[in-house]
């Protein structure tokens, strides 16, 4: 009898624990989703409903026209193309350069390796805003102003990405390299056929972070471009706000459109992303 009570007690404790856990998870999830919910419902509201007190969570009349109005404020089709092109190009470029650099820092021996790596890490301490004007001058002198080169080339490498992958590559045993060398495998082949597949979660994390960073890039694009044909979505989103007020319903409609590709990407890569975050210890 006693043992049965014990089992029942354990079961009860486990169930209570789970209940509390699920409640907390649900509460956390609700807090995370609330802004998204507000964004989506606001995108369908009439202007007068947006800041109504008490808030009206579900629009009375669904204003699909907000999406048409928002879309017509600026050439958003072009902005989407540019955002995609910039995000994909920089992501591919950065993944390639960071893999190569991170491998060198993790597995190769060369003069000044530690110093170079420390200097590279030191550059992370410099705020981006401080470099904006010197970078603007450089881009202008290179003749890249208002061109795709300005949006892509400076972002083809990332110190943070190198750091992240280096940490991951270091966890791969050196014995693997020794074994592959005995089998006649070149260093390059070892990198692409052994290290890269083993590091897929970390590489996916680098790629996803880069994609998100490029997709959301605002100040760089604004400063380095002038014409509508080179602008991206985040710049387009500022069109809905002014010093004295904001067209929230249109801004939210445009924002919903802007996050759809990111959501789709996250949907397909979430497993690798979470693995990468867990294994590399990024918080």
């Amino acid at each position, binding site marked *: 009898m006693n043992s049965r009570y014990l089992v029942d007690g354990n079961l009860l404790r486990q169930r209570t624990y789970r209940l509390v856990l699920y409640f907390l998870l649900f509460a956390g999830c609700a807090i995370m989703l609330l802004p998204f919910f507000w964004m989506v419902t606001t995108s369908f509201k009439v202007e007068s409903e947006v800041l109504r007190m008490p808030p009206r969570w579900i629009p009375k009349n669904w204003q699909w026209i907000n999406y048409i109005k928002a879309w017509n404020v600026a050439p958003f089709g072009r902005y989407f193309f540019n955002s995609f092109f910039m995000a994909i190009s920089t992501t591919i470029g950065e993944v390639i350069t960071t893999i190569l650099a991170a491998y060198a820092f993790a597995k190769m021996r060369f003069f000044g390796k530690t110093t170079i790596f420390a200097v590279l890490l030191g550059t992370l301490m410099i705020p981006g805003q401080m470099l904006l004007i010197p970078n603007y001058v450089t881009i202008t002198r290179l003749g890249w102003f208002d061109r795709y080169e300005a949006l892509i080339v400076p972002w083809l490498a990332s110190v943070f990405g190198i750091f992240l992958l280096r940490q991951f590559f270091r966890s791969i045993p050196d014995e693997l390299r020794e074994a592959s060398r005995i089998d006649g495998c070149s260093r390059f082949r070892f990198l692409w056929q052994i290290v890269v597949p083993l590091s897929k979660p970390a590489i996916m994390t680098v790629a996803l972070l880069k994609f998100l960073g490029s997709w959301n890039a605002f*100040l760089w694009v604004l400063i380095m471009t002038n014409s509508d044909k080179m602008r991206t979505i985040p710049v387009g989103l500022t069109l809905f706000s002014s010093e004295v*007020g904001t067209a929230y319903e249109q801004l939210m409609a445009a924002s919903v459109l802007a996050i759809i590709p990111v959501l789709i990407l996250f949907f397909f890569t979430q497993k690798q992303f979470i693995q990468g975050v867990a294994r590399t210890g990024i918080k």
Partner: protein
Amino acid sequence: MKSWKIGAIGLVLVLLFGLFAMAEENVTITFWHAMSSGHQPNLQNLVDDFMAEYPYITVELSYQGGYGDLQQKINAAVVAGNVPTMAQAYENWVTPIVEVLYPIGPHMTGLEKADIIDGLVPSNTYNGILYTVPFNKSIMVFYYRKDLVPTPPATWEEYLQMAKDLTADTNDDGTIDQFGTGFRPSANPEQFLNFLEEAGGSILNEDWTEVTINNEAGLAAMEYAASLAPYSLITSAYMSDAFQANQVCMFIDTSAGYYYNNKAAETAGFEMGVARVPVGPVNQKSMIQGTNLGVFDMNQTQAQKDAAVLLARFLLLANKTVFWAEKGGYQPVTKSAYVTEEWKNWVATHEYQQAISAQMLDGFSQILHPNYGDMRDIIATSFEEAMMGEAAPKEALDAAAGELGALLE
């Protein structure tokens, strides 16, 4: 006809033809602006009109984000030598880069210059020369709920008394939910600067050598603001949001916010009134805000500079500045605009404009000091501290004066 006459006529014809050909030479200018979606079609309309009148000129409008972004970009462009032909700019942005600007004033007629509203001339004049011209101008006015404020306050004392009377706990839950007035100290220190001007004070003395914000007049302004604090909603959000939520009954805000404030009133179900700001102990002045237009002189051709000056002058024409005002919620920037039939009719049919128009002719602008942006931030902090009760008015002003003094050094 004598041969010299024929020769002279020929020469004149050649010169005329040459001038004509020069005038007709196609030229493209770029115009950097910070006008968001609501204003862009109006600006495009004006530019289209201009291009229709001067078909040889192409104007490329280029949106550069908010004002902060535009300033950052102009600064970067000046360093890189990659400036546009013309741009919107606040007064204090121009001061440090005035040497790379092409003065517009010398290319305007005396009548054109005299037509600019008096309060806007000093803020566009550098070293005695009119370098820039006013463009999108608004002014601080007094917004109020007509159902709760039958007659807007005429003086500071009346304003304070009304704020006191209107502050209430309408649902008896022990907390105030209806404030007589409201302030956005961190976002809108111009609310304090308006009090400062009306108290006869100033941030600096005339030659910018001494900080005067904490003198007797400055203290009177800050003490008055602090006396309103218990009856004020202190927020960083748009005042229209608080207006719509029935949290404030009256407030001082820019006339450019009319559209949003009125929309908020309509949604909340009351009628909004607009009046002149209450008269202060020394005068009834109101701060003019908004940017001016400047033409750059770095790597532009003479034809580009001439075209940009032409556009700046075009935008000052009475019917153009009236169009811009009617469509965009700004105010006409020339005196002649205020006496046009179109504007008179507009004012007659838009009651709120009467107060704004009257206020505009008595407006004052920000100082041209190159560090005005930093000064504004310091004043905002001091204003916020006083309004939040974190510092006594004198203490807040003295702290601001110390920081402003360090900036001057």
